[in-house]
């Protein structure tokens, strides 16, 4: 089937206004006749659920946590971008749009990104009205800071807990609608299947994580705000439960998966310390405002950092990218750290680390100011490493953090399955091949508060009188398939734990589909993943029963889907014979080691569709058309 991006006509800056004026509407008295399922209650899901309930739709919201406030959006630290230009430093909607397109290495849709930049203004207003305590100046107005890949200060923040505070805003809006009876909240319910009736998304199947009951839920439309898939690497900055199952189940029901190989490796995470390591902890990019990144000039220099004199340090980002310096975009900063470590100049016991040093900033601004800006991050670092970053430089290393790829959606955020909407990190839409810092919160909230609640009406207006009941054959089949998968996992009765398989998969992905990829490596990885997946279904040991709380069974289902997704990521990475943003193919680089795009052949969105068990998925290409922005080689020098 053809993918239609449904980009509205007219000049770029007028497209969203045009679209809003031309969508079909559902009249206020009819809205309560429509049921909408929202899966996930982070920024993208929670904001959508609350807003659609405010509009009058009947919303059912599903989360696997004990409370919607646990979603992983809560862990975002640094901030949220908006083109308010409060700092009078030349910012504008166009500049935010342009920075995002450029930061994404010219692999995103112009129209979507422009809408995102426009909506950034409304998000800040909405969040402040909800009581989000953003940092302020002494005069009472809002404060901003800088983030990577831009030269203005447009990032709004609430200490190092911006994600937490924005999520609490959405959570509180959602709880208000729950209290009003407009949202039916299903906590501790995990979506395990999408139900498609006559080609339209009409419901989901969930497992109740307390009783184990597998249940079907019908609705007029389904919204997935279920986050990204960085946990395919096992070690990532994502929360332990973050998984791809919801979007993967949708993929297997026909939804196209776009650009799965676009993954973001974040440059500033605390390095791994041992085999028992269960996750990696991010240190906010905002630290690069004041911290300076360096490694020793000499290979194998094991002196403590404070004993290495200034002239024997290589501040490599400042050296290579003088105009952006320590605020180079994430993909570039990560690769530069890897290069320094590959060159034998890495620090720490493992040699996989670089310094992020605040000594100069503390000298310049005083300890109090640094404490005010980053206090909680410094504490977290101290807790984890037992080193005091006020006295010795932090050690950091890149780690998987965000996935730009996700389910394919049109301009209205609807997938190619009518009635299935996808918001936030779960879709592919706005960040191209690399996301800029402080833009994930912006996108999640733009999608959730302002886009889907409007665009969904255009679809629902066509669904009058087409309600389906959850006792139809399609639902029964989906329940049977889900139970069957759970039972197969329980029945394997093998010898190895789920985690041991997940770690092994993560190692393959990190080695062959991580920061640097080669055709040769990817060709090696695919059979390795297939082989491991086959062994998984035979050798995995999932104890306990299906009809009780069973954390091993929950994990087992998620990891089973990661195996399949991992293979698709490698396939996509292999097919894209160029380097773009977070996708770095070693064969395609400039003489200086920068990513080398191939706009003639790869200026498209790669949308993959499921073609059956063990069959090669079909690839559809949505060409990217640039009308406003001139394609150029990204330069941060």
């Amino acid at each position, binding site marked *: 089937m053809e993918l239609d991006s449904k980009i509205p006509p007219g000049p770029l800056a007028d497209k969203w206004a045009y679209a809003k004026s031309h969508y079909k509407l559902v009249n206020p008295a009819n809205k309560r006749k429509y049921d909408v399922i929202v899966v996930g209650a982070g920024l993208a899901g929670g904001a959508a659920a609350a807003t659609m309930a405010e509009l009058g739709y009947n919303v059912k919201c599903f989360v696997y946590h004990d409370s919607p406030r646990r979603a992983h959006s809560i862990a975002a630290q640094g901030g949220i971008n908006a083109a308010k230009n409060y700092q009078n430093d030349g910012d504008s909607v166009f500049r935010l749009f342009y920075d995002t397109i450029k930061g994404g290495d010219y692999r995103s849709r112009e129209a979507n990104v422009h809408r995102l930049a426009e909506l950034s203004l409304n998000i800040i207003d909405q969040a402040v009205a909800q009581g989000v305590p953003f940092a302020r100046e002494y005069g009472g107005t809002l404060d901003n800071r800088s983030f990577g890949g831009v030269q203005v200060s447009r990032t709004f923040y609430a200490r190092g807990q911006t994600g937490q*505070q924005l999520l609490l805003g959405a959570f509180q809006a959602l709880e208000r609608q729950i209290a009003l009876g407009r949202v039916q909240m299903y906590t501790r319910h995990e979506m395990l299947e999408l139900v498609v009736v006559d080609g339209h998304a009409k419901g989901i199947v969930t497992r109740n994580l307390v009783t184990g009951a597998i249940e079907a839920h019908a609705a007029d439309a389904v919204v997935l705000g279920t986050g990204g898939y960085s946990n395919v690497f096992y070690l990532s900055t994502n929360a332990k439960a973050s998984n791809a199952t919801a979007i993967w189940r949708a993929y297997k029901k026909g939804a196209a998966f776009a650009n799965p190989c676009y993954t973001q490796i974040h440059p500033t995470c605390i390095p791994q310390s041992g085999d028992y390591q269960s996750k990696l902890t991010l240190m906010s990019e905002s630290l690069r405002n004041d911290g300076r990144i360096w490694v020793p000039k000499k290979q194998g220099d094991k002196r403590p950092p404070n004993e290495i004199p200034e002239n024997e340090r290589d501040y490599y980002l400042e050296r290579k990218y003088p105009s952006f310096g320590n605020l180079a975009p994430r993909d570039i900063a990560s690769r530069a750290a890897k290069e320094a470590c590959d060159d034998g100049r890495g620090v720490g016991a493992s040699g996989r680390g670089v310094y992020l040093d605040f000594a100069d900033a503390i000298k310049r601004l005083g300890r109090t100011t640094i404490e005010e800006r980053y206090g909680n991050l410094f504490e977290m670092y101290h807790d984890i490493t037992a080193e005091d970053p006020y006295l010795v430089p932090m050690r950091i290393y890149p780690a998987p953090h965000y996935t730009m790829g996700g389910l394919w959606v049109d301009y209205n955020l609807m997938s190619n399955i009518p009635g299935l909407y996808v918001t936030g990190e779960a879709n592919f839409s706005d960040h191209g091949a690399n996301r800029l810092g402080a833009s994930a919160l912006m996108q999640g909230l733009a999608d959730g508060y302002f886009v889907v609640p409007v665009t969904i009406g255009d679809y629902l207006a066509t669904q009058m009188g087409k309600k389906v009941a959850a006792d139809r054959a399609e639902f029964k089949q989906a329940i049977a398939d889900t139970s069957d998968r759970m039972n197969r996992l329980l029945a394997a009765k093998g010898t190895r734990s789920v985690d041991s398989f997940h770690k092994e998969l993560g190692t393959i992905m990190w080695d062959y589909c991580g920061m640097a990829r080669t055709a040769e490596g990817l060709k090696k990885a695919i059979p390795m993943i297939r082989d491991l997946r086959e062994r998984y279904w035979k050798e995995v040991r999932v104890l306990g029963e299906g009809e009780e709380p069973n954390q091993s069974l929950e994990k087992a289902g998620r990891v089973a889907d990661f195996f399949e997704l991992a293979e698709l990521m490698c396939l996509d990475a292999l097919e894209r014979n160029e380097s773009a943003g977070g996708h770095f193919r070693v064969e395609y680089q400039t003489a200086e080691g920068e990513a080398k795009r191939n706009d003639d052949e790869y200026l498209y969105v790669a949308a993959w569709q499921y073609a059956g068990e063990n069959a090669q998925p079909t690839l559809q290409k949505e060409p990217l058309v640039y009308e406003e922005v001139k394609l150029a080689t990204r330069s941060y020098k």
Partner: protein
Amino acid sequence: MNLTLHVWRQAARATDGKFVTYKAENISPEASFLEMLDVVNESLIAKGEDPIHFEHDCREGICGSCGMMINGTAHGPIGATATCQLHMRHFNDGDEVTIEPWRAKAFPIIKDLIVDRSGLDKIIQAGGYISVNTGSAIEANSLPIPKPVQEQAMDAAECIQCGACVAQCPNGAAQLFTSAKISHLGLLPQGQPERYSRVLNMVETMESMFGSCTMFRECEAVCPKGISTDFIARMNRDYIVAKFKR
């Protein structure tokens, strides 16, 4: 390092529970407390025993999912630290560690160390929000907020809803949690229109499910975000004013 754990195991709410003793062996002092439990669970799975169930997610001290009584103290021996941020370097080789679920009548056990904390969400539903629909917000900078007010509101807003305050309280009271949300919103100008109805509704909902506060202040001592009991005083003052206004 090697430790001996005494862990509360309970298959379901309706069944009886008991302490079971496990060995935690070859634990790195750099590992987190939850990573230590991961290691124990891997050894249990290898032996064919059901792994210890506990809630956790972000493992960065912010989602509020994790929490257990460690030697009788919520989140363990180090102050202002969630269980996931507690590291094994704070224990000694050969230590005996007792691990229990949150202890509170309002938090019934689901399995092992997992409890039902949904009562806290119900308190938020009673008024822990500012009633503003999407789209009707005013321009953000048209409402100046003095920096000290915003800072104080942020101190309260940092609560992660883990429930440690309730678990540690001899009365099982939720005053610290409730007062943090009431203060966060009540300090800000945006929160003024609903300030007094909010405090009445939230306090009354809280009292219907949780114990009453008699100012032991154990909550403050174990709060992973170091939230101050000053906010309880503030809530009480607002509540009395609200009573007279009604």
